[in-house]
């Protein structure tokens, strides 16, 4: 029984924290807020040099071949630094999809390029119904002689503007879990157009992607036709774990910022950190965060090693961290007082990220109901 981190894992976290303090300070996040794509290819390249974009990619395909737990520890640090960009979608979701469902040709084509940071992937699955269950996947892919003809719309696709390839959930037949297929669609394919959806959290850009008679070859099919849901279910678990880890880091950072601020801000001739009203808020935040950390570790470990409990564990982590991150940032803003409400102060980066993370890939109520079902209540 060892519910702890290895030396290598602790080192990974430390070096990630140092790297991000240097390469992605809040001034950098602020600068990207007003960039058209909200993305720095330069930072992405540097993260690739650290091996992060290929962290999950098997060594045979140019990656480090590490585990989801390692990735969760890295994502915790990226959440701390509220790193803007498509990292989770490209280096976790699309990467895992290829690892689990890709043909050897697809793996050979994409994994080394994703690992090196040369290519970027994203995941297009939501539609205007905002459903993340199988029944929500209705984008039609009509079978043709050489492949598919795709027509319709995907919504809230992260960083579609900078992605080279869109992992797209389509319906090739039937309804429900059967008949869902996954296609790797080149963003430059004729008939595919994207429209930016203006969003409060400028570190997580989202797009509407319009497919109008997009011709896709057979070689773009990931896995077996009509059986895409199996891969997708695994990706949704991965996304839940990834966002929970990001939220954990962000919540911890928000707590630290708030506590640091109350130690230097004086009112009534004393540091406001000496007021119990604020101390107890801070204690509540720490009491939320500490046990939640164990849930993130467990969910990542279950994803790696305990397949029978992986989905339940992912939902436990996502449900809890969604709630904890939002609550923590709300309290952190309040502990800053008026300054925390301004654009000029950094606090709003985390406040907005918390809300994005809360609703993406299933909100609190969604995951609680899923827990209830998996537990057989």
């Amino acid at each position, binding site marked *: 029984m060892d*519910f702890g981190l290895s030396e290598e894992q602790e080192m990974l976290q430390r070096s990630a924290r140092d790297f991000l303090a240097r390469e992605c300070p809040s001034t950098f996040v602020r600068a990207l807020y007003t960039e058209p794509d909200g993305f720095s290819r330069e930072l992405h390249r540097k993260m690739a040099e650290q091996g992060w974009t290929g962290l999950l990619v098997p060594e045979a395909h140019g990656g480090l071949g590490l585990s989801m737990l390692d990735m969760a520890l890295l994502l915790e640090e990226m959440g701390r630094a509220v790193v803007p960009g498509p990292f989770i979608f490209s280096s976790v979701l699309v990467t895992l999809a290829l690892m689990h469902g890709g043909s050897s040709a697809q793996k050979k084509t994409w994994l080394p390029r994703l690992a090196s940071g040369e290519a970027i992937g994203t995941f297009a699955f939501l539609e205007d119904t905002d459903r993340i269950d199988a029944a929500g996947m209705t984008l039609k892919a009509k079978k043709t002689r050489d492949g598919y003809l795709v027509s319709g719309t995907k919504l809230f696709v992260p960083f579609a503007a900078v992605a080279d390839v869109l992992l797209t959930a389509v319906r090739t037949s039937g309804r429900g879990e059967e008949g869902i297929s996954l296609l790797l669609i080149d963003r430059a394919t004729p008939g595919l157009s994207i429209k930016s959806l203006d969003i409060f959290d400028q570190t997580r850009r989202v797009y509407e992607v319009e497919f109008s008679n997009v011709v896709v070859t057979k070689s773009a099919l990931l896995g077996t036709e009509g059986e895409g849901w199996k891969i997708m279910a695994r990706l949704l678990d991965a996304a839940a774990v990834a966002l929970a880890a990001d939220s954990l880091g962000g919540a911890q950072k928000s707590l630290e910022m708030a506590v640091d601020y109350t130690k230097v801000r004086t009112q009534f001739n004393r540091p406001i950190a*000496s007021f*119990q009203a604020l*101390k107890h808020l801070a204690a509540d935040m720490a009491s939320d965060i500490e046990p939640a*950390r164990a849930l993130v*570790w467990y969910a990542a470990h279950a994803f790696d090693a305990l397949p029978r409990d992986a989905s339940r564990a992912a939902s436990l982590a996502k449900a809890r961290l969604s709630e904890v991150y939002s609550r923590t940032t709300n309290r952190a803003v309040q502990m800053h007082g008026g300054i925390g409400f301004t654009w000029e102060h950094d606090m709003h980066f985390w406040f907005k990220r918390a809300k994005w993370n809360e609703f993406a890939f299933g909100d609190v109520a969604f995951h609680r109901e899923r827990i209830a079902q998996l537990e057989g209540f």
Partner: protein
Amino acid sequence: MDLTYSKEDETFRKEVRAWLKKNLPKKDKAISDLMPHDPERVKRSKDWQHKLFDAGYVAMNWPKEYGGQDADVMRQTIVNEELTLARAPGLVGASGLTMLGPTLIQCGTEEQKRRYLPKVLTADEIWCQGYSEPGSGSDLASLTTRAELVGDEFVVNGQKVWTSNAQFSDWMFCLVRTDPDAPKHRGISYILIDMRTPGITVRPLVQMTGDAGFNEVFFDNARVPRANLVGELHQGWMVANATLFHERNMLGSTTRTQLMMQNLIRLARSHQRYGKPAAEDPLMRQKLSDLLTRVEAMKYHSYRQLTDVMHGRSPGIGAMVNKLVGTELNHDICALALEIMNSYAPLKKGAVRVIDNGTWAYEFMFTLGLVIGGGTSQIQKNIISERGLGMPKSG
């Protein structure tokens, strides 16, 4: 990260489980059906602890020379988990085992260790804790029970309160004021008081549950030998903090909370609420999942601390939140049970139509007592913010 137990630990767990199956008190000898102050209950409880000790399942992590086994914390954790899963009675000598024992091992003289520790283990002597006073609760260091050193004896006058088990305890480890002129933390001493000393009166206090689990203890010129002082004179606050530390950092076995959660889910499945099982009501499902999530978080949080302790690392702020989070979680589980039971919720043990023999309403009250006792939630928050987050003291 590896959540499997070693072969040796698995084998050990099986041994414990088999032993418990054979040796757990039978229904007719059940301890829980008796009132806390019933002498028969005390006797059965002592016998049970003695039996456990003889089997090698008590204070396993204590040093060998004082009756322990120098076992790693994993062994004791396995025993504690199995005891809870078997719904075994709690240990009547718990405060001696978890508070006095570790303090004596750390601060006591060799003579004190040899005199007291063996009987702590076997429950031949039961200990109670004499800390709180009517005027000193959260501000424990303001305590005023006076112990005046006269010759070779302390003469003790004053009153303690909320003293669990005092009615049948043999000894009390007690904080007394030995220097009334010194700053409050520096005039306190930690002494051991024989409860049969003339001048001591114990009066039961009835809790909101109707039980008399704790007491008031009055001292009227009670004379205590100077040899019963633990640590230095006037240094009792530091000695006591060693025990407080043990209390707060006791690896809160979350097994009991997990059992309560399982029982809650069972209740939600079986009890009809507004025409259908509570577990089919979407709102109740949300609430159940929320509680289950928090229970699971505390389970893995305790695994993490267990790992830290085994590697000799301090769990730090992680351990400081245990008491606050754990006690409130237990109370919230009971509160949801009451919500599910609705009109049936207030029925008492033995009542016609009572559900689960009234356990939920009883525990709902009892667990609120635990939110307050041993440092209120508000005091816990002071500790977390000051020691854990480095925020300054108030006032």
